[in-house]
C-alpha cells in the first residue's frame, strides 16, 4: 500500500470505528427514551455529550482523510503532516472520552457557557479534560486546513488560481492551472475551516481560562455566538468535504467528465460565505441578539440551498441522467447520500424559517434534520468512498441480491429511525430529554426499531466490505 493510501485508510477506519461506537450510544439513548431501558439521567447525558462530539469528529475524520487523499493525487502532500493532524484529533477524542467516561462530564458537546461550570455533577478535572480535548481536535483540524490550503495555493497559482477567481474573471486562464471541482471544494473547506478553528481556539482558551481562574468572566451571548460559529461550521463542512469525492466518484461510475466551470467556482464562493454566517440560525430564540443578524441568518440558511441544489446535486444528476451508470454498492451509497443531503436540507430550511423555528427550535425536529444529512448524507458518502476504493482495488462488486438486502435494511431502517424524530419534533417533543413527554416514548420506540434494522444492514455492509478487501487485488496501488 502506498503511504497516501495508508493515510486514507487510517483516517477512514478510525472515523468508521468511532462512528460505530457512537451509533451504539445513540441506540442506547433512543431505547432509554422509549423507556425500554433505564440508565438514569447522569449516564444518559454523558452519553449524549459523547455521542454528539464523537459523531461530528468521526465524520470529520472521514472527510479529512478522503479529501486529503484526493489532493494527494493532484500533487505532493506531506503524509507526516496529515498524520500529525490526525494524532491531534485522536488525542482530542481520547481526552473527551476520558472526561465523559469515567469523568462523567455531561454539559453537552456544545459546552454552552456557563453550563460546564455550574451545577456540575462531575469533577472539575473532567471539565478541564473535555475542554483540552476540544482544543486538541480544533488544533488538529486547523493544522489539516492549513496544509490543504497551502497545497491548493501552491498547486494552482495562489489565491486567484486556487479559488477559481482567474477562471471566472480572466479569460486567458490556462486550462492546466484550473483546479478540478474537488480542489475548489478543498480550498473553500480549508479557508472556512481555518476561520472555524480560530474561533474554536478563542472560545476554548476563554473557557480554559475560566476553568483555571473562575474570576475570568465570559459574556454568555458572545460565548453562544462563538461556540455555534465553531460548532455549526465544523459540522457543516463535513458535508462539503465529502462532496469532493462525490464529484470524483459520480464521474467515475457514469463514465462522464465533471469539470470546474465558472458557475461551480462562484457557487463555492457563495458556500464559503453561507457556511460562515448561517450559524446565526442557532440564536434565533435569543431575542437580544442584534436583529439584522437574525435576518442574515435566515437568508444565508435559505440561500445555501442554491449552490447545493443548483450546482452539486444538479451536476451529479446530469452526470447520472441516461448515462451508462454502473450501480454498485459504492455508487448506490454516493447517490443515496445525495438524496439524504437534499431531504435533510428541506427539513433544515423549514427549521431555518424564523416563524417556524419559534415552534421547532430545540425540539426533536433539529436532530431529525441533521441526522438526515449526517447519517443519510455524509456517512453514506463515507461508505461510498470506502466501497469505491474496495471495488476499484478488487475489480469486483457485490451481487444484486446483496445490494437489495443492504438497501432494504439500511435505507428502510434509516427512514423509520428518522421519521421517529420528525414526527416527535413536529409535535413539540423537546430534544435532549432523557424522559420525553408524549408522544416522545412512542416515536422513540419506532426509532429504536428502525435503528436496530439499520444496524443489521450495516453489519451486512461491514461483512461485505471485509469480503471485498480480502479478494486478491486486481488493480494494486
Amino acid at each position, binding site marked *: 500500500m502506498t503511504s497516501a493510501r495508508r493515510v486514507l485508510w487510517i483516517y477512514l477506519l478510525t472515523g468508521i470505528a468511532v462512528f460505530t461506537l457512537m451509533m451504539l450510544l445513540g441506540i442506547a439513548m433512543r431505547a432509554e427514551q422509549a423507556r425500554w431501558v433505564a440508565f438514569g*439521567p447522569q449516564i*444518559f*447525558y454523558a452519553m449524549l455529550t459523547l455521542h454528539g462530539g464523537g459523531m461530528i469528529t468521526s465524520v470529520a475524520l472521514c472527510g479529512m482523510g478522503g479529501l486529503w487523499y484526493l489532493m494527494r493525487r493532484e500533487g505532493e502532500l506531506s503524509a507526516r503532516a496529515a498524520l500529525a493532524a490526525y494524532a491531534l484529533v485522536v488525542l482530542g477524542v481520547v481526552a473527551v472520552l476520558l472526561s465523559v467516561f469515567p469523568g462523567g462530564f*455531561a*454539559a453537552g458537546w*456544545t459546552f*454552552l457557557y*456557563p*453550563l460546564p461550570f*455550574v*451545577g456540575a*455533577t462531575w469533577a472539575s478535572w473532567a471539565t478541564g479534560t473535555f475542554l483540552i480535548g476540544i482544543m486538541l481536535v480544533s488544533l488538529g483540524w486547523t493544522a489539516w486546513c492549513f496544509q490543504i490550503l497551502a497545497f491548493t495555493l501552491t498547486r494552482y497559482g495562489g489565491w486567484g488560481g486556487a479559488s477559481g477567481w482567474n477562471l471566472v474573471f480572466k479569460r486567458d486562464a490556462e486550462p492546466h492551472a484550473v483546479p478540478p471541482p474537488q480542489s475548489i471544494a478543498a480550498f473553500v473547506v480549508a479557508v472556512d475551516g481555518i476561520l472555524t478553528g480560530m474561533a474554536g481556539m478563542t472560545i476554548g482558551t476563554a473557557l480554559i481560562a475560566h476553568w483555571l481562574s473562575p474570576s475570568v468572566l465570559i*459574556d*454568555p*451571548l458572545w460565548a*453562544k455566538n462563538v461556540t455555534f460559529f465553531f460548532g455549526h461550521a465544523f459540522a457543516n463542512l463535513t458535508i462539503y468535504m465529502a462532496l469532493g469525492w462525490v464529484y470524483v466518484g459520480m464521474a467515475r461510475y457514469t463514465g462522464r467528465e465533471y469539470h470546474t466551470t465558472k458557475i461551480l467556482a462562484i457557487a463555492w464562493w457563495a458556500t464559503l460565505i453561507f457556511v460562515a454566517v448561517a450559524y446565526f440560525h442557532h440564536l434565533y*430564540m435569543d*431575542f*437580544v441578539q442584534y*436583529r439584522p443578524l437574525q435576518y442574515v441568518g*435566515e*437568508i444565508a440558511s*435559505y440561500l445555501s*440551498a*442554491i449552490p447545493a*441544489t*443548483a450546482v452539486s446535486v444538479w451536476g451529479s*444528476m*446530469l452526470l*447520472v*441522467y441516461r*448515462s451508462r*451508470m454502473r450501480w454498485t454498492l459504492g455508487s448506490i451509497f454516493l*447517490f443515496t447520500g445525495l*438524496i439524504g443531503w*437534499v*431531504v435533510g436540507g*428541506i*427539513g433544515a430550511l423549514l427549521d431555518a424559517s*424564523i*416563524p*417556524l423555528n*419559534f*415552534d*421547532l*427550535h*430545540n*425540539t426533536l*425536529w433539529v436532530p431529525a434534520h441533521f441526522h438526515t444529512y449526517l447519517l443519510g448524507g455524509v456517512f453514506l458518502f463515507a461508505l461510498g468512498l470506502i466501497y469505491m476504493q474496495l471495488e476499484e482495488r478488487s475489480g469486483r462488486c457485490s451481487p444484486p441480491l446483496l445490494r437489495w438486502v443492504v438497501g432494504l435494511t439500511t435505507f428502510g431502517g434509516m427512514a423509520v429511525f428518522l421519521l421517529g424524530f420528525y414526527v416527535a*419534533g*413536529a*409535535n*413539540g417533543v*423537546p*430534544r*435532549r*430529554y*432523557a424522559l420525553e*413527554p*408524549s408522544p416522545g416514548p412512542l416515536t422513540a420506540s419506532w426509532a429504536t426499531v428502525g435503528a436496530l434494522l439499520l444496524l443489521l444492514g450495516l453489519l451486512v455492509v461491514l461483512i461485505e466490505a471485509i469480503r471485498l478487501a480480502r479478494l486478491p487485488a486486481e488493480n494494486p496501488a
Partner: protein
Amino acid sequence: MAKGPLVLPVFLVLAAAAMAVMLLVALSTRLSPLPYSQVQPNGYKLRRWWFVILSVGLVAIFAVTLPWFPYPPLRAAAHAAKNDTLYVKITAQQYGFTMPSVLPLDRRIVFEVTSLDVNHGFGIYDPRGQIVAQVQAMPDYVNHLPVTFTRAGRYTVRCLEYCGIGHASMQGGFDVR
C-alpha cells in the same frame, strides 16, 4: 397558533417530491444511454430556471413571512404605546421557573425572561400540548417575548435548552383565564 403539526405534511410532500425526482434520474439509466454532450445543454437550460425560481422564491418567502417573526418591536416607545400590555418577569434556574400561576386571556403579555445560572429555554405549550411560543432564558440578559393567549386552560412550560442533568424535569405551568 401552533405551526408544528403543519410543518410535517409540508416536509413530507417536499421530501417525497425531491426523492421522486432523484429516483427518476436514477431509473433513467435503464433507458438507452445518451451522449453527455446532448444531456448537458438541456440540463443547464433547465438549471437556469431552477436557479431563478429558487432564488426568487426563497427571498420572497423571507419577505412575505416577516410579519410573523416573533420578535418584539425594536423601539421601546412601541412597547409603551400599548399601555394595556402586561409585563411578566420570568426567572429560570436549575431546575425550575419562577412565574405567576395565573395569566389573563386575550391580553398582550410581554414576558421578560432571564436566568440566574446557565442558559435555559422558556417554552410554552398550550392545553393541547403544542408549542405556542418560546424564547431563551440567558444569564446577564433579558429577552422580551410578546404573546397573546387566545385559548383558556392549563399551559405547561418546559425548558428548551439543555441545562444539566435535571433538564427533562424542568417544567412549570400557569392557568390562562
